[in-house]
């Protein structure tokens, strides 16, 4: 079992990405999240556990129920990691576009 617990591990799985998209719009209970998937309930629980350990989801007790909501700050880490690389290509391609526009 891979013990890595960071945002990259979290978003590596398609079901976990789907969970994040669901929770991004509103806080949901584990049951409500699971009802959106054909996957077995324990599997969804496992994904929720990983997402929580990766700090992408936060649990909030509301009466007898636990709601999951998204931790947007942590999500930003993913974008920040790639950003300098993306920026470099963006600069290069902007230059390409500017150079080639002269030939039009």
């Amino acid at each position, binding site marked *: 079992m891979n013990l890595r617990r960071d945002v*990259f591990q979290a978003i*590596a799985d398609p079901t976990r990405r789907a969970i994040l998209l669901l929770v991004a719009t509103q806080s949901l209970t584990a049951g409500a999240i699971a009802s959106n998937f054909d996957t077995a309930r324990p599997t969804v629980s496992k994904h929720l556990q990983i997402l929580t350990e990766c700090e992408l989801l936060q649990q909030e007790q509301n009466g007898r129920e636990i709601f999951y909501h998204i931790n947007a700050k942590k999500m930003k880490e993913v974008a920040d990691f790639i950003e300098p*690389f*993306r920026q470099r290509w*963006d600069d290069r*391609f902007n230059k390409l576009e500017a150079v*080639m526009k002269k*030939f039009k």
Partner: protein
Amino acid sequence: MQQKTNVHAEDGKQELVITREFELPLNLLFRAYIEPEIVEQWMGTKVLKLENQRHGSYQFETTDPMGNKHLFNGTIHEFEPEQKITRTFEMEGTPFPVQLEFLSFESMTTDTSKLTMHIIYKSVADRDQMLQMPFRQGINMAHNRLQDYFNHIK
């Protein structure tokens, strides 16, 4: 401002997908990849060799702000005008392994086109290290400038 260049890096995979939509017709976008004088302008590099054909190869030389020369080279595996270029890419004199690049060119409208670069690395670690390169370089350059500054006041 909307980001024009998108980098898709899925975790745990040794690949990257870079996409970019250009406000250029397909023929101009493709020319930017095959004419050495044009490549030199937008890549900021000197083109020592560029043989755009199957079994052809290329070699570029860049000079960094410190005056150091860096060589890049690769072999062209597939070349279909205004459609695709498949090539390898290697940074000479660095521990980075060779990477494989699939470039595909598509026309969107008469005035716009799209480039998709699919890059395969030797390992996940190599890819992640490459992603962090511009950041590291930025830090190195800042350190060098700092060093210069202190050398001057000594």
